[in-house]
Structures are given as structure tokens and as C-alpha cells.
């Protein structure tokens, strides 16, 4: 058990370090996130001055939401990317046979690797644009320490949920060989239903109800609402439980799918 945990830590650490070598890309990304953050803020300010209190948010909530969105884009890898893309590439080249041959869990390996990546993206592409936002706009911050801790947990669970979704997308390459189509589709769903384009609180009627129970709600809407204090009292724990439930369901599904993929490789020969 201890040996396994130390392996996952080593994998996460390597992954973190690997992404940290792409310095220029990181800086360019931070710049882009900051510019988009500013643009979206002006849009939101315009929208909320027309409709004050829309979706239960005031203008300050909306502006904060815009920056949280920019911070989460790369952290949860809304448009795919991350360790799961490595897997898809290895399925295409057949290198995945080497992953299967190793006496360690494939799912555990890629999850650890993706968590390492997510931490790097949180500290760079997440934190830096937020600082820019905080310097330029009047933002709302978590009211107390408990909310901050709950927000931190929500971010981790946002990553694990998105990992589960992305892993299923990548695993489709075992059957389709090329997962590009599925990936594009998944990216559109994620961008829309995470609340990145329009906050889910603004979705009208049943579409809003639906969007808040889908896994993508975990990516941004749930952590943002915790940050903004929209889940009073025990509601925050319920929101975290919602994310945890999706994490468990998706990882279990990944486990099943990888089992099938393993059978396919071993029995059918790829």
C-alpha cells in the first residue's frame, strides 16, 4: 500500500515537472487567459447592468465567476489534453501494450499523472490570471477558512471528474483507433455544460436543472458556487458529495472500459 502511494506520488511529481519545462507555452497561456478574462468581465458587467441579480448573481459574483472560469480551463482541461491525451496517442501507436504489460494499474497511473499536471496548471494558468483579475477588478473571496478548504476539495474533485470523462473519451481509441471526433464532441459538451461559456445559473428552465446534475457541472459551476458562498451551511458538503459521486461513478466506468479494452488487446490482438 505504502509502496503504491509512493509510486503514484512519484508519477505525479514527474508529470508536474514535465509540464513545467514548457515555460514559453505557460507564459503565453497566462497572457491569453488574462486577456479573455478581461473581455468576459466587460461582457458580464454589461449583462448584469441590464439584469441585476440574474441567476442569483450580482455583478461582483459574475466578474469573479469569469476569473474562476479562466483559472479552471486548463486545470480541469476542459478541451481535453493532459495525461488522457498521452493514453490516446499510445493506443494509436500501439505503445499501450507496454502500459498493459506493467504490473501496475493503468487507471491509477494516468490519474496520478493527470493530478500532477493539474496542480501545475492550477499554480500557473490558474493562479496568475486570477492575480491579474484581482488587480483590475473588485472580486469576491471565500468568506471563511471552511469555504476555502471546501473550495480546494472542489477543485480536486473537478479534476477527477474531468479526468474520468476524458479517460472514457481517450479509451474510445481502443475501438475507433482515432478519437479525434469523439474528442471534439466531448470538448463542445464540456465547454457548454461546465458553465464556461454561460454560467449554468443562467440556463433557462429544465435545461438549467439538467445541466446542474450532469458531470460537467463539477468542472466550474460547483467550485465557483462554493467560492462565492452560494451553498450555505451543509449545502457545500452536498455539492462536494455530488462531485464525489460522479468521480466514483466515472472511475468505476473507466475501470470497466479499460477491462474490456485489455480483453480486446489480449484476445483480438489490438
Amino acid at each position, binding site marked *: 500500500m505504502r*509502496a503504491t502511494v*509512493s*509510486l503514484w506520488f*512519484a*508519477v505525479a511529481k*514527474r508529470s508536474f515537472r*514535465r509540464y513545467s*519545462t514548457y515555460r514559453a507555452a505557460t507564459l503565453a497561456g497566462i497572457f491569453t487567459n488574462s486577456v479573455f478574462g478581461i473581455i468576459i468581465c466587460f461582457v458580464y458587467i454589461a449583462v448584469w447592468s441590464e439584469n441585476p441579480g440574474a441567476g442569483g448573481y450580482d455583478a461582483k459574483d459574475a466578474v469573479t465567476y469569469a476569473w474562476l472560469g479562466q483559472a479552471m480551463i486548463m486545470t480541469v482541461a476542459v478541451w481535453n489534453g493532459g495525461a488522457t491525451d498521452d493514453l490516446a496517442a499510445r493506443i494509436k*501507436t*500501439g*505503445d499501450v*501494450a*507496454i502500459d*498493459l*504489460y*506493467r*504490473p*501496475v494499474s493503468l487507471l491509477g497511473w494516468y490519474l496520478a499523472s493527470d493530478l500532477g499536471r493539474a496542480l501545475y496548471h492550477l499554480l500557473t494558468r490558474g493562479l496568475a490570471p486570477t492575480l491579474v483579475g484581482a488587480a483590475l477588478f473588485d472580486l469576491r473571496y471565500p468568506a471563511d477558512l471552511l469555504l476555502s478548504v471546501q473550495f480546494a476539495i472542489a477543485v480536486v474533485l473537478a479534476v477527477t471528474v474531468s479526468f474520468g470523462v476524458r479517460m472514457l473519451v481517450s479509451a474510445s481509441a481502443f475501438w475507433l483507433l482515432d478519437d479525434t471526433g469523439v474528442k471534439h464532441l466531448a470538448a463542445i459538451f464540456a465547454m457548454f455544460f461546465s458553465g464556461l461559456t454561460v454560467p449554468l445559473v443562467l440556463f433557462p428552465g429544465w435545461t438549467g436543472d439538467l445541466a446542474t446534475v450532469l458531470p460537467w457541472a463539477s468542472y466550474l459551476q460547483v467550485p465557483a458556487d462554493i467560492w462565492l458562498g452560494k451553498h450555505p451551511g451543509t449545502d457545500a458538503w452536498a455539492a462536494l458529495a455530488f462531485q464525489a459521486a460522479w468521480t466514483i461513478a466515472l472511475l468505476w466506468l473507466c475501470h470497466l472500459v479499460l477491462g474490456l479494452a485489455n480483453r480486446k*488487446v*489480449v*484476445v*483480438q*490482438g489490438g
Partner: protein
Amino acid sequence: MSVIEVQGVSRSFVVRRKVGWLGRERETVHAVRDLHFGVERGEMVGYIGPNGAGKSTTIKMLTGILVPTSGRLTVAGMVPSTQRTALARRIGVVFGQRTTLWWDLPLRDSFDLLRRIYRIPDARYRANMATFTELLDLAEILDTPVRQLSLGQRMRGDIAAALLHDPEVVYLDEPTIGLDVISKSSLRDFLRETNRERGVTILLTTHDLVDIEQLCSRVMVIDKGSLVFDGSLDGLHALGDARRTLVVDLVEPGEPIRSLGADTVKVEGPRQWLTFAADTSAAPLVADIARRYQVADLSILEPSIEDVIKQMYTRTPREG
């Protein structure tokens, strides 16, 4: 009991081929058919055959990442496909065309991850690292990311990686493919030493007869999925009567060279081709020619495995 036992193992693949515009046709490819062989502990066996003969398919079945379509197969007493994880801790594999190292990481980090994956005790890890660093000359590449290594350097790293956890059995699938002459020869030295000093059982696939010549006392030849020979290299040469070729560049064009035990098969200006039996040394022939002719350059071509197999078929009429 043999450490590797293969009894009547066959493997076929169903492939779908496009036919015409929309049609698809299923076709069965028989990658290996009815293999029978055993490998004893400490043996170093060459597994040789042309491209597509079924070598990699055999290795994959021996690691457990592919199940046989029929037949029985055990490695170290285990059935690879059902006990893959347990077996993986006791065997090592090098896939010449792929790497088990991590592209983005320095070589050293790949070794460290493998140490954790295989739970190698610290003392063993340090001792093995010291040995491999010296014998495989890894010191100056340990901190280089794998993607920046040359093919030969990467192969050295891969071989160390396969041996790090002290496996009893190691499969090497085309470890010398694409390597230059010097890399090949130092790799062969290392493998010979590993087999001798550590008593590791080695099964080596290749389509280069020189690998076998320099390393293996036993050779198995596979062609179109079937084992067509299992015995000593001399036995193979005797059976196939394969010949090596000496290419001689004379200073000036001249008469065909006459030398004992060699046939001059081709003359093109100053360049001449002589063939001689593959199981004899080239040294006396080279010395004789150098003494009697004005020689500008000499080189020796080994028979290709394709030639040997072709010879086998023409020399020994097969039943059926």
C-alpha cells in the same frame, strides 16, 4: 522442468479488409502455427526469421499481452495470459521497436519509476545501477531526456530497464535493429556477460544472423509462422549450406581470383564477389588473397536469414 514450455501453440488474427467500395472481407491471418519448443534455465536462444514470420507474436504470447488461439504455454511455471502481473515481476522484455522508457523524462527518472513499479529493494537497485552504468556506459546519458537519445543509447537504456528487477527470463525482440556496428557489438558483449554471470535465460529475436553467430549456441528458425529449424548454428549452416560473400576491390581490374575453398561468382571491373561456406573462417581466405593480389579494400557479407531459409527449402525436400 523447462523455464519456457510451448506446446502446440497457434495464434491467428481476424483482419477486416476493405473490398471495393463498401464491401468488407474477413480474413484470418495465421501468425504462428503449432509451435513446440522448450527453453532451459540459463540458455541463450536465438529466435530468427524474416519480417512477418511470427517472432513478435510469439514474444507477446510469452509475456501474456496476447493469448494463444490454441495450445499450451508456461513461463516459470505460470500461464502468462492469466498471471500476467505476477509473471511481469519475474521477466524482462525489450521491444526493439518501442521503448519502455518515458520520452519526456531523463533516463535516470525512468529507472527510478521502474524501481518503484517493481519494488526493487534499495540495495539491489543500487548494485544493479552501478553494474549497468558501467557495463552499458550509461553515466553520461543518465540525465538526458529519453527523446534526445540516439537509437543505440536508448537501446542501452531499455536493456538496463528490462534487467533492473533481476528477471529470471528476458525476451529481447530485435534489440539490434537499426544499430550501428559498434553499438551492436558492445550490446552483444553485454548480453553474453549477463547470460553468463547472472544466469539469466535469454530469448532473442532478430533477423540478423550475426547476432546469433556471436551469442547463441542454439537457434530456432521461424518462417511463415512455423518453426522450421531448432538446433545449433553449425547445424543450420550445414542444413542450408548458406554461404558468406567476400567482396574484394582490387587496385586494377584483373582475371577472376582463384583461391581455395571460394568461388568467384561475379566480376565487375576491379570489384569481385567470392562466396565461401558460412561455417568456415574468412581469415585464411583473406590472408591468401591479400598475399597474391593488389587489394584496395575488402568486406564480408553475411548470408541473410532469407537466403538461409531459401537454401533450406531447396536443399531439403520437405514432405507433403
